[in-house]
């Protein structure tokens, strides 16, 4: 068999595999959207849920998902930024660093339901915080940190060494070089990673069932003082998210149209995650052009 022929066959097979992957994805998306979108309406997106049957709109859940996401990111971005910079630039190549790396790896492979149970036992029960936004955010942070740290470390390490030498040779300190020269170059990659992880956090259910809870008490959207019990910003109230809601409607929903409700909620969830992915691309490219001043 000639080289040309082998090449041809290999190309065909690879193309087929790619087509299969894309095909499965399109089928999945189309199925969920076609099943769900007809049932999505403005009142569904903003309405409240009947606590007993699970019927009604998903307004509160949608808000909870975003609020939890913001809180999670507020906690995990600074920590993983510090850890990523440390690992990429300061950590010596020794046993301690490899221990840290293995710890991060183990953390990233923990099943999310285990993380959720841990959060339940420690924060909800032991610290008596109860099912709350903050318990959920901390559980999600555990699950988010390793991936973000990895992403930040890799983005920083991908910046050529000679950029660091350039900074140092101009008399800049290592820290100044890192923050002013290396970080901006790595920023598009870091932001892309953050937005992608936001998509994952947004769709996460297992880690939240026992931490943020499965109830979405109706909140008073006119009250934005985080200290008030009825305020949507109160971090100590239970907060069922969209993903948890889908799970719940499907397992114990008593509404007559439970399957329609979950299909509609799934469509909304999928669209949100797709928007995160799209956003990651757009934002990454935009930032890259901004920091490098290339039009």
């Amino acid at each position, binding site marked *: 068999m000639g080289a040309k022929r082998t090449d041809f066959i290999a190309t065909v097979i690879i193309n087929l595999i790619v087509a299969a992957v894309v095909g499965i994805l399109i089928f999945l998306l189309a199925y969920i959207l076609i099943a769900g979108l007809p049932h999505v309406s403005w009142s569904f997106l903003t309405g409240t849920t009947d606590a007993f049957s699970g019927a009604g709109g998903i307004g509160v859940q949608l808000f909870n998902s975003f609020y939890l996401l913001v809180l999670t990111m507020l906690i995990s971005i600074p920590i993983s930024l510090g850890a990523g910079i440390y690992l990429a630039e300061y950590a010596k190549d020794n046993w301690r660093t490899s221990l840290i790396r293995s710890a991060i790896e183990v953390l990233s492979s923990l099943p999310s339901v285990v993380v959720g149970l841990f959060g339940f036992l420690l924060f909800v029960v032991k610290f008596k915080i109860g099912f709350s936004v903050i318990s959920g955010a901390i559980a999600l942070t555990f699950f988010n940190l390793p991936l973000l740290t990895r992403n930040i470390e890799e983005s920083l390490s991908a910046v*050529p060494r*000679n*950029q660091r*030498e*350039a*900074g*140092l*040779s*101009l*008399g*800049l*300190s290592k820290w*100044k070089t890192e923050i*002013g*020269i290396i970080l*901006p*170059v790595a920023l598009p990659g870091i932001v892309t990673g953050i937005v992608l992880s936001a998509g994952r956090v947004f769709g996460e259910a297992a880690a939240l069932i026992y931490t943020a809870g499965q109830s979405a008490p109706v909140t008073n959207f006119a009250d934005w003082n985080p200290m008030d019990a009825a305020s949507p910003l109160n971090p100590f109230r239970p907060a069922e998210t969209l993903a948890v809601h889908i799970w719940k409607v499907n397992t114990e929903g008593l509404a007559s149209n439970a399957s329609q409700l979950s299909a509609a909620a799934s469509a909304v969830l999928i669209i949100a995650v797709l928007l995160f992915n799209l956003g990651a691309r757009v934002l990454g490219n935009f930032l890259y052009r901004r*920091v*490098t*001043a*290339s*039009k």
Partner: protein
Amino acid sequence: MLKQYSFEKTAVQTFAGNVSLAMRTENLQVFYGANHAMHDADLGFPKNQITALIGASGSGKSTYLRSLNRMNDGIATVTGKIWYHDVDINEPNVNIYEIRRHIGMVFQRPNPFAKSIRENIVYALKANGIKGKAELEERVETSLKGAALWDEVKDSLDKSALALSGGQQQRLCIARSIAMEPDVLLLDEPCSALDPISTVKVEETLLQLQKKYSIIIVTHNMQQAARVSSQCAFFHLGHVMEYTPTATMFSNPQIPATQDYISGSFG
């Protein structure tokens, strides 16, 4: 098989007689762990002149050059003295950031920052506390003129430096260094990634710059050393074998190693 040359037989002039020296090393030794990469280098560099460092690959030119502004900190162990304005800057307690502002460096591969042309020059200046807009503008212009790049980029200072050609990027790196108003400029094979026309431009730039700066340049290109330098040091396997006026070295090399290297029958 590599010819053996005696490291005892060297011809190293001091150049300290009638010119003042910008800097000088005494018994400089460099170790990469157990690898003794530089032995006893005693070289003095006359002010406002260009000194070339030549030698085969791996002979220790970069190792030596990078020691001069402490860029080997954290990479190699450097012992001996590096005299600069009567201070031994190889002491552990000197401020290396300060040193590097006085002794600038340009690398083999152009390494502009992923920023605009203007930002490339002013970033380090701002970090050093120069805030005045007029002063910064002025430094951008003078340094770009000094590096013979001004005419080519004066209308596009806010464009990305990464969009420049390799030769322009290298001249931008030179401009970035001289904007710090250093005393000494170290260049490690600055033209090896450039085409002949860009190389000529950089060489012309250096010949102009020696009026204000003392320049030490590593080069693989002997024609280049002959064209730009006043004196020339020949490195071999971590030893300085010969350090003589460039004209002498190329017309009348003093020791067999240099003779062979220059005539191309080396190794």
